């Protein structure tokens, strides 16, 4: 609690901070523009990767939905037993984990299903067509092998036909792409952190003389640290804000061209996802804050 208060006071201090202290850090110089730029570029890349990852996520989700209702259980039984066996099968399916619902298809539905091969004039009534149970799997899907065994034991006429199997890889592929997108984001953030740290250190070492002079005239370490940390945090915040905004604009205007790919519904953010990229600048600023603080304290540890 107390620590939190101190941290808060420190943050306020940092933002309102006495302007004069800022003047002691040389205002521009390439190293500081480098910091801003690194923060900006990495923010841009991470927002882009975030958008990619979210879009792939949506893709995976959509595909899962599309593919969710294609398993069937076919029951071929002598005239009288079909209904009875279907009932038993439905009960088994209802308690099977991985299946969210199961229901008997109507003749009309079955006709539509077969239309591609037989046209819609097929005389269903005269054919020995089996009953079909449509299964909605949930995202994991059932244990197919176990279910097959159980059905074989209790409903001799039942055959499980797992149409989704060949489609599942699409979903897996999409989820993996999403995972790789997330990995990219993590990699980008790690690189950003390392680069901001190095930029802060290089700025500190470039401002070696500034630090020497300040110490010579009686500046406390906390004063020096604050001046540098403030400067760098603001730089990283500004740089990454620009990078984020730029990336969001870029994404907003990029995908119109190729919109036809209906499945990947544009690269843009959807709904509350628009909030996610807003965190990027704060994360960058936080990294800069911590990195500069550590680098400055380290630099100031020695004597003189």
């Amino acid at each position, binding site marked *: 609690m107390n620590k939190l208060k101190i941290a808060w006071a420190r943050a306020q201090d940092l933002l309102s901070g006495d302007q004069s202290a800022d003047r002691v850090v040389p205002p521009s110089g390439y190293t500081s523009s480098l910091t801003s730029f690194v923060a900006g570029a990495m923010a841009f890349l991470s927002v882009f990767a975030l958008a990619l990852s979210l879009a792939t996520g949506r893709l995976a989700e959509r595909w899962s939905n599309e593919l969710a209702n294609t398993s069937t259980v076919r029951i071929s039984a002598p005239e009288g037993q079909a209904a009875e066996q279907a009932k038993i099968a439905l009960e088994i399916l209802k308690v099977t984990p991985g299946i969210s619902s199961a229901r008997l298809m109507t003749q009309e539905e079955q006709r539509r299903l077969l239309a591609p091969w037989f046209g819609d004039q097929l005389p269903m009534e005269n054919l020995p067509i089996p009953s079909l149970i449509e299964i909605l799997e949930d995202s994991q899907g059932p244990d197919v092998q176990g279910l097959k065994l159980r059905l074989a034991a209790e409903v001799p006429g039942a055959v499980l036909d797992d149409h989704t199997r060949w489609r599942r890889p699409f979903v897996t592929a999409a989820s993996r792409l999403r995972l790789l997108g997330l990995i990219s984001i993590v990699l980008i953030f790690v690189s950003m952190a390392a680069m901001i740290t190095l930029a802060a250190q290089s700025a500190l070492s470039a401002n070696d003389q500034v630090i020497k*002079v300040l110490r*010579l005239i*009686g*500046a*406390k370490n906390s004063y020096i640290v604050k001046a540098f940390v403030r400067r760098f945090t603001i730089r990283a915040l500004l740089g990454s804000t620009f990078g984020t905004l730029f990336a969001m604009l870029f994404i907003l205007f990029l995908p119109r061209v190729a919109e036809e790919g209906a499945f990947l519904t544009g690269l843009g953010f959807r709904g509350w996802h628009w909030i996610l990229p807003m965190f990027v600048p704060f994360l960058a600023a936080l990294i800069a804050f911590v990195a500069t603080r550590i680098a400055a304290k380290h630099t100031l540890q020695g*004597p003189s």
Partner: protein
Amino acid sequence: MIELKKAGFSYGDGAILADVNVHLAKGSFHFLTGPSGSGKSTFLKLCYQALMPSAGTVKVLGKDVRAMTQDDIAMVRRRIGVVHQDCQFLDHLSLAENVLMPSQVSGRDVRDDLTNFNQLMDWVDLMDRINALPAELSGGERQRAALARALILSPDVILADEPTGNVDWAMGKRLLGLLIELNKMGKTVVVATHDMNLIREAKSEVPARVLRIQNNSLLVSGADL
């Protein structure tokens, strides 16, 4: 104010200073001389804690320097005005901002020091250069600015390393006059210099002692050189 007892210092290989015993009392005026490379700057750095003694003790304003934290050192330096031999400045700030910097970093209201600032600038004859950047100053101007910065907080102790090396004789006498003036107000002054004329000049006005570094040890002489 500053007291060295059996103090020694070495940068690694051989000792630069050994067995130094000296007391720079309040209100005293000392010159520090010795051949180039003998250890004058090193001695002054021991006095303002840019270096820590390798042996013996150094007490500054009554405190043993070894027991000081970095913040303690910062506080001490606000009461010690230092003219470094290289006169380092913040290159991106004007002369005025540089001279007033000690006031700023110690958290004072800079306006309180403006009178002092004006007087000092007049004395060192830099009033018309206060907006120049350090790189736009001549060697002697930089040296005078460094002296002004050392004096801006009216420190109790003034340590000046070669403050007149780059100025002409007239200006040198003028700067010396300022230091003598301050010494008469009770400030402790130490000036490292090679200029024997300067020492002679001072001796005619204040009872200055001369510290001479030779063969790694500090010799104190009262009246003569």
